[in-house]
């Protein structure tokens, strides 16, 4: 029923606009490819100049034992084998997986909800949007100082508020159980960035689709479910993938606020990679760990890409 109504709405809107479906001349398709490569040149040049080299270097370095300064020797696949047996790496992977599993769905839903709510034509809409967007702008030390105060078990704001309603607050970032959830909550606070993308996505939905649906008698909820959501799926897909990529690389909060603790509860992959490289000088091992992370994220991305045909609505190209 969902697809049917959607297609019905589309056909209706096309009829309203007077657009007819046509097919493309074949010679144009060949020229299209040439133009495509032309359009691609900025990226290709940049890739070759700035990106490919370091990427290849990282994988190359993973075959050596090196501290870059005084010793470098070839160890072959030693680090790659070690990556699978190292329990700290395993812990870091699991911790990061925990973070990803909660913050990706959580962040996506939250950002989308906020965007939709703030698209309802409220008074002072721009002001509300700015308030929600602000947290994603603040960065660096100010954020850490701020949240460390908020989370302080004895004199912080959260436990103070909880105390007022009679609950004894947890130890937050000082406790193994609550440290990761605390960091996840912090990441949700930055949902304003994704919200912005959803807002743009919402604006990209042709109003004619809504009109067509309304003519057919669809109420608010059905319009939302059958027009808004399907048309938003490309944006949702973008946010999910970028969220995946970003959250697998979570580092700053774990580094600055909790230092990977307590008891490695917030030891994330990138933090462990950073320590292995810059603090312990095993840059080869760090590169192998980064390579492992690369593969893990790649698998997630591939899975997402494959799944698009099931749920993402594109204009077929």
């Amino acid at each position, binding site marked *: 029923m969902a697809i049917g109504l959607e297609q019905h709405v589309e056909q209706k809107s096309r009829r309203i606009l007077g657009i007819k479906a046509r097919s493309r001349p074949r010679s144009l398709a060949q020229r299209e490819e040439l133009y495509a490569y032309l359009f691609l040149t900025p990226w290709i040049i940049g890739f070759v100049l700035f990106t490919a080299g370091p990427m290849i270097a990282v994988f190359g370095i993973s075959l050596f034992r090196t501290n870059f300064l005084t010793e470098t020797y070839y160890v072959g696949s030693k680090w790659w084998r070690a990556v699978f047996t190292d329990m700290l790496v395993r812990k870091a992977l699991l911790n990061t997986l925990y973070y990803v599993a909660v913050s990706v769905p959580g962040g996506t839903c939250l950002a989308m909800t906020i965007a939709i709510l703030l698209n309802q034509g409220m008074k002072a809409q721009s002001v509300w949007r700015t308030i929600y967007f602000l947290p994603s702008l603040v960065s660096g030390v100010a954020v850490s100082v701020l949240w*460390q105060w908020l989370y302080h078990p004895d004199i912080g704001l959260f436990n103070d508020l909880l105390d007022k309603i009679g609950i004894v607050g947890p130890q937050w970032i000082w406790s193994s159980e609550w440290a990761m959830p605390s960091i996840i909550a912090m990441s949700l606070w930055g949902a304003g960035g994704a919200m912005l993308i959803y807002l743009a996505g919402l604006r990209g939905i042709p109003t004619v689709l809504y009109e067509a649906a309304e003519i057919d008698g669809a109420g608010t909820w059905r319009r939302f479910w059958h027009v808004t959501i399907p048309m938003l799926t490309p944006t949702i897909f973008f946010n999910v993938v970028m969220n995946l990529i970003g959250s697998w690389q979570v580092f700053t909060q774990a580094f600055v606020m909790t230092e990977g603790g307590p008891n490695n509860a917030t030891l994330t992959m990138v933090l462990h990679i950073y*320590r292995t490289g810059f603090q*312990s000088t095993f840059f080869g091992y760090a590169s192998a760990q980064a390579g492992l992370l690369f593969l893990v994220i790649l698998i997630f991305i591939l899975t997402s890409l494959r799944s698009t045909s099931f749920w993402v609505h594109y204009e077929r190209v």
Partner: protein
Amino acid sequence: MSKDLSRREFLRWSMVGSAALVLASCAPKPTPTPPPKVEEKVVEKEAEPTKAEEKVQLRYQSRHGGGPVGKRLWAAFFEYFYDKNPNVEVEWLVRPEGDQAENILSQMVAGDGPDVYQLCCWQTTFFIQQGQALNLQPYINRDAEEVDIDDFYSQQFVPWILNGDIHFMPYYTGTMVLYYNKDMFDEVGVDYLPSEWGELSFDEYRETCAKFVVREKPLRWGTSNYGQGANWLTQYWLRGFGANMVDPNDPDASLLCKPEALECLEHIRQMIHEEKSFAQGAEMGGVGVHQFFNNKSIAMMEMGSWGLSECLTGAAHVEAIEAPGTDWLDFVWDLAPMWTGAGGKMTHQSVDGQGVWSQTPHPEESWQLCKEVASAEFEMLNITVGDGMQPSRKSVMPFYVDALRKQWPILEEVHLEVMAEAMTQDIPGPEEMFNNDKLCKDQILKPAFDLVFLENKAPVELICEHSKVVAKFNKGEIGVEDIGGELAKIRV
């Protein structure tokens, strides 16, 4: 093809492209693309034109001295330095908040490391262990009279000695002492702390802390520091009990299994979790130990001389910001020596220093700069026009105390001599460093300390078990990839 690219489109296309090029090549006004050096002199120096080409260019990566007062200090210093070394030109680089080990490392890998660089704590030994610090001993021996090594606090160089040779020179020293709130002491009816080293025993300290404990809101503790853990803060406690975190005879191994060490750790654990007289992790809360002290949430704090500025208004390096009057602490406070335990007098002396890059093309000039920053002249400048940091030279200490008192009369009532005494008596010591220090402390020891001190989920014996892995790793019995597995095997 011409049909596809109409003239309008071509014009639009090229306008866009050239606009991009123009913007990309725009320099920010008013600075044009500068040569990499910045002239760091105050007075218009009448440099002989013929000598200009022969000037040696040095890069000095500083760690301190940012902000308005820092600039004043360095202006004065370089005036003095260029008088002594007219053939040198120094590009002085500040790093806000001192985050720069990564950067320095990258620069060194690229072959472009700073000639002189200044670091703190574990980062100093890190670079020494990586072979990136020039052996300064020959220079020290050669310029012995000028350097006057005996004028320094004797333990200052311990972390910087490799194969018997010194590799870094001190920038300043900070002695840990006890700051305490006299009003709170009066309120609870406790005698003020003694002002001679060796007079306060650990048991007395612990009892005193317990007297201030309040368990309903607003909570109160007896004392605190930046946070007990696998770090230098627990090290001076251990020394007070006659124990060490790092084996003084073998930086590969840890001595945390000795009974004295375990006794000390157990005291700490009890004070934090059972007596609740030690506010744990004050620093980890981001709300620092200073705030606890200012708030009167703690009656005492274990803090260094660098913390004096927090208790004073118009402190030299914040003078641009503070207004006089209302920000004075609204209670009377004083300094006292650290407690003394079975291990004898102890304290912590900070480990800030500068070294010369081992690959520098100008070792001699770099040494001159390094030496001058460690000189009595610089330390005097630091006191008079600079940050007001505690000097590392015993001969300069009296001037330090006087200068502080002149600037803040309130310090007449405060026993600043406590810090001077620690240096005169050469009370140990600086931070103890392992080989592969950060790895041992963060990856091997920290999880155990978290469990014991932060969460109170394990007995102190766990720390002992973890410390055994330190030697295993450093001696090469296990590899870095096995550490996780070794730790997981531990059952206490």
